[in-house]
């Protein structure tokens, strides 16, 4: 058995015995559009995983991880999805901040923060987007002033996932006076539980709230809580975005496959599968899913060879568009019944949530339009757009 297969089998065995008893009811809970579901129970589950050493498996062993290879990490995500395990609550710290601190943090920062992420005792949120700085991150207006005791942060962040559950926020703030664009930004770690921080949930089209607005009004953090060189936070923030597009997306096609299989089963039950147009779209969705998988395999082979190829830059736009179309297809399979949200106050089913929430897939983490600009300019070498 290869080391990946050994790793896979070990994790599968653990998941099978772990997702029983009090945790059995958590199967399939949470996820995009449903982050509110059973949050406390999912947190307990994740701490149970941590105690067995199944969080942060891709981190180097010296920081508490397992030093899992890329292939093993893919196996991890696949097995997690195959077991129908609940959506993760600590992924922002584990997949975004952790790798950032490992790459750019000081020894003291790693010693202070990595253990809390690994044990899921401290949850993190990401403070990048602002009302005027979404895709245009260089337009950040939140300011941080250095004084004798540390940093004082004032400004507004938006679309902050899980801010209401998090103890800490990593954010970019403007710290240089008179500087523009991506100069003079700093990457700061700020505690959420203090008088200068206010979190307001944003009600989404699904009726649920997993994003928030976060207002900082003279919020404090220690002088030691800046990652990288003050004023050079752009580089650190960009690295975090790179981690976001990394390995965690490789396992997601397993979840997509479960959605598609469930939709096909529904189409068979309600007769929609007899409609030649629906059949063609289901087959097209299946084709797209195979391509998502082959894209991921190419990405994996490329990363193993040390040179990610063009497949890395098409991955986001491809899967996001595919998932949005799956939501549209789901509504056609549901037919007229999909118009009704029976139950008080606004009780959507899984298909309705997929249809509505998948509209976010082509917006967050770099909208399709931003992805097209990246491909056109960085991959195809076309001339840059005039930018202010």
């Amino acid at each position: 058995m290869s080391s990946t297969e050994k790793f896979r089998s070990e994790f599968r065995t653990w998941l099978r015995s772990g997702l029983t008893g009090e945790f059995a009811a958590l199967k399939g809970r949470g996820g995009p559009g449903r982050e509110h579901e059973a949050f406390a129970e999912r947190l307990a589950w994740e701490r149970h995983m941590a105690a067995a050493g199944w969080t942060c498996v891709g981190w180097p062993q010296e920081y508490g991880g397992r030093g899992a290879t890329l292939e093993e990490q893919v196996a991890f995500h696949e097995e997690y999805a195959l077991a129908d395990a609940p959506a993760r609550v600590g992924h922002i710290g584990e997949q975004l901040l952790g790798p950032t601190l490992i790459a750019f943090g000081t020894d003291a920062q790693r010693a202070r923060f990595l253990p809390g992420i690994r044990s899921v005792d401290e949850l993190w949120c990401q403070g990048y987007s602002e009302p005027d700085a979404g895709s245009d991150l260089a337009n950040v207006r939140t300011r941080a002033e250095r004084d004798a005791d540390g940093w004082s942060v004032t400004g507004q962040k938006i679309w902050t996932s899980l801010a209401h559950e998090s103890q800490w926020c990593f954010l970019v703030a403007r710290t240089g006076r008179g500087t523009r664009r991506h100069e003079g930004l700093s990457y700061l770690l700020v505690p959420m539980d203090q008088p200068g921080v206010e979190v307001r949930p944003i009600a989404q089209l699904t009726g649920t709230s997993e994003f928030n607005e976060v207002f900082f009004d003279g919020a404090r953090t220690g002088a030691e809580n800046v990652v990288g060189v003050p004023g050079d936070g752009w580089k650190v923030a960009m690295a975090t975005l790179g981690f976001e597009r990394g390995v965690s997306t490789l396992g997601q096609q397993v979840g997509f496959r479960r959605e598609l299989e469930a939709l096909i089963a529904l189409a068979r039950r309600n007769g929609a599968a007899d409609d030649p147009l629906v059949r063609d779209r289901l087959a097209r969705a299946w084709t797209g899913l195979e391509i998502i998988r082959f894209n991921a395999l190419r990405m994996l082979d490329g990363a193993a060879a040390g040179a990610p190829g063009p497949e890395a830059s098409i991955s986001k736009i491809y899967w996001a568009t595919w998932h949005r179309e799956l939501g549209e297809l789901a509504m056609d399979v549901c037919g007229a019944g999909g118009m009704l949200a029976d139950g008080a106050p606004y009780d959507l089913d899984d298909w309705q949530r997929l249809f509505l929430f998948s509209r976010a897939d082509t917006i967050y983490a770099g909208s399709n339009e931003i992805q097209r600009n990246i491909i056109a300019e960085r991959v195809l070498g076309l001339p840059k757009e005039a930018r202010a």
Partner: protein
Amino acid sequence: MRFGEEHQELRTAVRSLLAKYEGAAAWGPLTRQIGVAGLAVPEEYGGAGCGPVEVHVVMEELGRTLAPVPYLGSAVLATQALLAAGDTGLLPALAEGRTTGALAWAENGSWRPEAVRARAVRGADGWRITGVKDHVLDGAGDGADVLLVAARTEAGLALFHVPSGADGVSREAHTTMDLTRPQATVRFDGAEARAVAVDGDRVLAHVRDLACTALAAEQVGAAERCLELTIAHVQDRVQFGRPIGSFQAVKHRLADAFVRVESARSAALGASWAAASGSPDLSRYAAVAKSACSEAFSAVAGDMIQLHGGIGITWEHDAHRYFKRAHGSSQLFGSPAGHRDRIAEAVVGPRAAGATSLA
């Protein structure tokens, strides 16, 4: 799913020969200097003992230049049919490129094994075949020397070899919309034949998988070339004082084309690697690759014409050649919708009673 150094060397060799010899003149050097016709033939029959991944590389390169050589018809269809049939006598000549082969397969515009109506009857002096075959690649009079024919016997579908110059065979060359891929209609009227495989369903199903896989690679190569030529054009062509490639409407269209080409490439690579490893899922992956690559190539060739503006709709510019090849290869071996119909049959389940099959 990554090419090794030897694949890159093969690619470079094929590309430089195709740059040196234009049109059909490339076939001689390709077979003599690189041995492309025998790449996927075992060494014991005079080939190089390679497989579907090497075929993939060659097909991508042939697609880039739309080279009018009989590689697909002879080295893929006829040769792989003989290999699948286990009939090896003709292989050395085919592998060397001394002779070319043609597989007479489709009838009434369909490549489904079920669509075969040609009949083979055994008499005192051996088999005799009667029927009409469409879309025979390189099948005209001055083309293939080795004619393989799928026909029905009382026991089911079988594969036959009709000797060169046999009586009762007439070949009619067509003028094809895509002038770089010659096709013929071949009529058999009691023509003498030799049986090479009695399990024709298995042979044809396997050949169809390999043919779709190889054609998908060709489509990726051609689509990639369309994109390259178009990117070069939009950087040169100035309108309103700027290269048109700086306008977002153009950039986004090309970014989408790139997503199409690279996702098609993933599909084609997936099928080639599945073929190379003998995956039991090859049929499904081949159908995925053929449908996805056909649609990608058609869309990108269409974009090429649009983004070249007026010059794109002239005979003088190459864009129409790619556009026509895209159309032809989209229909060859079954349409994209037809292949999705096969996928639906497998993953959604049987079609409702009364509905007819597309593929």
